[in-house]
């Protein structure tokens, strides 16, 4: 284990990994960038000794679009659609983090009803993202059927989100100061029907994959990361909460109306792959509770506040973060008084969660690489931005 105090950290840099591979019977295996287990374009060069992984070198940048440079060239409103294309599975969380940052810059208060719509949308999006994680994870583990059952429920949520925002995946729904349109009339009846049915669907998916004997055998005790190392790697979201750390921004730094809603933060005990999966299943159940409370307490009122036509926040800087399905999604916006931000830094959870992979994987088998990477629930454009 690299001794934390020495600056070099004691990790073999790639040059030596190349040289040492030549001598012993290790061999380098290139996983990706077009490999089924890496959802999207992630390249990992694995130094293997037979089936056991000795060291792992991630190579990134295969979907690097240079967004932070583009943001400096666009006005505040033009940036909103880009935020949900970095992590298309939690588009709502990204929209929300960015819009909240600009609203803080403007010192703008949004009406109660907007907060409720935002919570409703965010929790639906969280379930949607966990469902896709379950589907993709089932595919990696060789079980094809959970993929289809998860997508059946996903389509229902997609229809609800699409009716409200117009987009199934890349919603571009939030605006600075609220929403352009109120929720469609068909939204709540559809939500009621969904809430009634989805509780059983989660149990079904749970038994189909997460409680499955072979799945447990492949994930229990595999890819363990302790709480300290997880925090040191800047991990957040289900990956952090699986290592016995019930830390969730909705509880640690409550934003919007999460302070007044009651729900638990599920936390695993020993931080292995199975705990990361279990935490996500539990989170889906908690999201259902939040959705019910938000639906019951839904206030009347205006669905947006009159924002000025051209948004020119005063010079200053702000960091606002939201608890996305993958972890802490934060936007650090520096404004210089003009219509375009001076600098926007996007803090994305997959970036830090993925950086812990080399340490988790040392000593495990190649088949575990697939299990561990699936449990980290990575979205690649979020890493490369």
């Amino acid at each position: 284990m690299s001794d934390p105090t020495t600056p070099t950290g004691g990790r073999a840099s790639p040059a030596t990994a190349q040289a040492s591979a030549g001598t012993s019977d290790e061999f380098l295996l290139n996983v990706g960038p077009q490999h089924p287990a890496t959802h999207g374009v992630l390249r990992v060069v694995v130094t293997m000794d037979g089936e056991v992984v000795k060291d792992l070198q991630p190579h990134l940048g295969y979907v690097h679009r240079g967004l932070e440079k583009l943001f400096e060239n666009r006005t505040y409103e033009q940036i909103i659609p880009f935020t949900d294309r970095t992590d298309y599975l939690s588009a709502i969380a990204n929209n929300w983090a960015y819009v909240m940052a600009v609203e803080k810059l403007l010192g703008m208060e949004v009406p109660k009803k907007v907060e409720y719509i935002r919570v409703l949308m965010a929790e639906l999006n969280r379930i949607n993202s966990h469902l896709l994680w379950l589907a993709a994870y089932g595919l990696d583990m060789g079980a094809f059927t959970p993929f289809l059952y998860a997508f059946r429920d996903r389509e229902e949520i997609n229809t609800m989100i699409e009716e409200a925002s117009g987009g199934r995946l890349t919603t571009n729904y939030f605006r600075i100061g609220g929403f352009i349109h109120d929720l469609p009339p068909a939204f709540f009846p559809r939500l009621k029907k969904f809430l009634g049915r989805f509780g059983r669907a989660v149990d079904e998916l749970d038994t189909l994959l997460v409680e499955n004997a072979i799945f447990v055998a492949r994930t229990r005790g595999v890819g363990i990361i302790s709480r300290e190392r997880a925090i040191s790697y800047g991990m957040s979201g289900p990956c952090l909460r699986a290592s016995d750390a019930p830390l969730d921004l909705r509880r640690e730094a409550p934003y919007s109306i999460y302070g007044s809603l009651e729900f638990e933060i599920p936390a695993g005990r020993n931080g292995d792959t199975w705990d990361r999966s279990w935490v996500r299943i539990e989170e889906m159940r908690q999201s259902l509770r939040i959705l019910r409370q938000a639906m019951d307490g839904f206030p009347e009122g205006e669905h947006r506040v009159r924002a000025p036509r051209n948004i020119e926040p005063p010079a200053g800087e702000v960091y606002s973060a939201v608890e996305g399905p993958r972890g802490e999604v934060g936007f650090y916006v520096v404004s210089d008084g003009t219509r375009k931000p001076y600098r926007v830094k996007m803090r994305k959870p997959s970036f830090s969660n993925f950086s812990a992979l080399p340490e988790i994987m040392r000593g495990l088998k190649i088949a575990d690489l697939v299990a561990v990477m699936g449990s980290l629930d990575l979205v690649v454009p979020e890493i490369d931005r």
Partner: protein
Amino acid sequence: MRDTADILAAIRSRFPRVENRPVDPAPSLVVEPEKLREHLLFLRDQLSFHHLVFLTALDRPAESELELVYRLFSYESRLSVMVRFRVPRDAGRVPTVSDLFRTAEWHERETAELFGLEFTGHPDPRRLLLPDDLEGYPLRKDFTHPNMPRLPEVTST
């Protein structure tokens, strides 16, 4: 678990220049780059700021300097703090903190390649995101690239 006032007092006593930038509630601590590691170790171990939220730079071409910003968050006291300092724009050297916070390793590699900095003592200073054939530092204000035409200036009517 030290309460917030106690922590803020400890910060003020330790750091000479504590400022409050507009809109962001977290206090900004301006430090010298040489004493960065020592300050961060103090914040992490004494004041339990374990979570390095992010680390990035801001290009200040006017003063030909790069401003580096580190944001820390403490799960125990739920406080955030910003540590910032300035470094000369060309051949800026910053001590690495990748051993204090493992997440800093990738954040530093990304900031180095996008801003043109050098993090001394970094275990793996290769490029992280950019293709190898790209010269120049994209996030600098004066970076130009063939397929980056200037957008027509948006006049605020």
